């Protein structure tokens, strides 16, 4: 077992829904409702789910862009919310960086590439300008962008190149953990593999840990060591990636994997029947009782709508479903 770098313990984020002149709170959107996971040093952990499942909220919480309603985030064994401002500035912020989904909006259009990539260095270190630019040119070299790109503006690059620049910026402070929020979903299919390989190379080179947020299962399978499937603010299944893809336990996981295999109806053989989910995810304002998935689950029984299932170990992985006893 590798060392645990970051641990989320029962994290909860509820957004208030207000109405009327007095901004009365009429309900809560349960974006994340009791999620726990661990990220190991040098490994990739993926969060998978439909839009609205709460993946991005978790990413924002880890990056301290949102404050949790309850629960803890432990970084190197210490509670992040108990850090002082100075500790955050030296012991957490520089160590946890991120690459965002959309490379067209994640860079200030009026800054040059050298200032964009150098910004974390300007902010966090006292290096003089020349030294920062030297470092920037090394970083750009690592991600395969030539030094002639230094003085250009972001709009002069293609999507794939911009995402490389975003990776260079994320690496500038030698972080331990990168939060990759859909790092390749905005890119052309032909570029995705390049960026994923770059990220994998950098991981082995610097012993980086990744949290990957994704909805594309191929990306997840290719990149991650551990994976968690989210549904409506909760984990339904988590564990080792290969095991999960070979032997999915939860009906929702099976439906996701089946949907991603791109079988056409006429291709379907008797054995491999595609599972198609009907309807949409229920509103997180008012999640269904019992198992949250029972409204769309083909295998739901009576118990599923009444009792909330526990997370249980089945084989190597963990699943939250009444069908496993």
């Amino acid at each position, binding site marked *: 077992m590798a060392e645990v770098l970051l641990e989320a313990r029962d994290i909860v984020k509820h957004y208030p829904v207000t109405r009327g002149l007095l901004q009365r709170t009429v309900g809560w959107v349960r974006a994340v409702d009791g999620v726990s996971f661990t990220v190991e040093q040098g490994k990739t952990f993926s969060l998978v789910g439909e839009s609205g499942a709460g993946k991005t909220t978790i990413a924002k919480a880890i*990056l301290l862009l949102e404050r949790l309603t309850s629960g803890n985030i432990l970084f190197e064994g210490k509670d992040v919310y108990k850090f002082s401002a100075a500790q955050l500035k030296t012991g957490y*912020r520089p160590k946890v960086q991120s690459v965002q989904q959309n490379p067209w909006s994640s860079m*200030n259009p*009026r*800054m040059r590439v050298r200032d964009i990539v150098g910004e974390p260095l300007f*902010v966090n270190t006292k290096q003089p300008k020349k030294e920062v630019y030297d470092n920037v040119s090394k970083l750009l070299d690592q991600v395969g962008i030539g030094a002639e790109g230094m003085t250009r503006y972001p709009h002069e690059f293609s999507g794939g190149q911009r995402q490389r620049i975003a990776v260079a*910026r994320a690496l500038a402070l030698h972080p331990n953990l990168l939060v990759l929020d859909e790092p390749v979903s905005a890119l052309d299919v032909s570029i995705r593999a390049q960026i994923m390989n770059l990220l994998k190379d950098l991981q082995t080179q610097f012993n980086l840990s990744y949290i990957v947020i994704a909805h594309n299962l191929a990306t997840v399978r290719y990149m991650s060591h551990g994976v968690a499937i989210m549904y409506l603010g909760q984990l339904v299944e988590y564990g080792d990636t290969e095991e999960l893809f070979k032997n999915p336990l939860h009906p929702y996981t099976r439906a996701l994997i089946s949907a991603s295999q791109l079988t056409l109806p006429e291709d379907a053989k008797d054995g491999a029947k595609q599972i198609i989910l009907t309807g949409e995810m229920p509103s997180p304002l008012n999640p269904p009782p019992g198992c949250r998935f029972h409204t769309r689950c083909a295998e739901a029984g009576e118990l599923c709508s009444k009792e909330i299932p526990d997370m249980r170990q089945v084989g190597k992985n963990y699943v939250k479903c009444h069908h496993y006893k």
Partner: protein
Amino acid sequence: MTVAPNIEAKTTNKRKGGVSRWSRIMKNLTFIIPLSIFIILILTSIFAPFIAPHDPEATSLTERRLPPAFIEGGSTKYLLGTDSLGRDVLSRVIYGARVSLSVSLMVIAITAGIGTLMGIASGYLGGRIDGFLMRVVDIAMSFPGLVLAMLLAVALGPGFFTVVIALSALGWAGYARLIRGETLRIRNSDFVAQARISGASSWRIMLRHIFPNVLNPLIIIMTLAVGMMILAESGMSYLGIGIPPPTPSWGSMVSDGRNDLDVAWWISTFPGICIGLVVLSGNFLGDWLRDKMDPRLRQL
């Protein structure tokens, strides 16, 4: 089958040879002409005592309402004629540039500066600061400007700085509103989130990320304000709370000549043309400046 490639070749040739060169010349002209007008006007107002052929305040009651030199009855002594008190219109236009340009440029610098500061602070910091600043803006916007100007004129006495203060006191509110809106849009963008992840302070985000991205609308409003401020100054002069009478300003010259428009059109027409030129070239220059400041448009 054989015709198609020919047509294509022709159209691409045409585009390369004609349209792009023409549009480049046009593009440069729209910047060179207004810039030269501006430079000429600024130099004129600086060196007014050397250029003006007459004392702008000297009256000559025997030579009232003389037409310009190029009209029958006019003399080369007064190239643009004389006004109802026999003062040289050309000299007054030259001296008037001083007042009109300096009032409008100063007011714009003050209002845009304060408004931008308030707008960015209000939009980015939000919460109580935003609530407080926006109520101040509401008050400033609902306060009748002329009443305040009159109060100031009474309290401070009419003069150059009274005009500047009166126009600045309420003028910043519009900028603050506009910039706050833009700031609200930008503060939710991905690159601001990324700056926060990098550990950038609020100061740095406001200065390096928000401010450069509110420049576009700011420049447009500033250039539109050039004309508005010249007209506002003339409005105040007309009410007698502007720059006191013997000193010429374009606005007051237009309103002075209004009564004689049927017999001596030149008195208000020439300063009017100057106001028009400044406003127009201000707008063109603003467009050019905006394009130059925006890296996405610069290379085009």
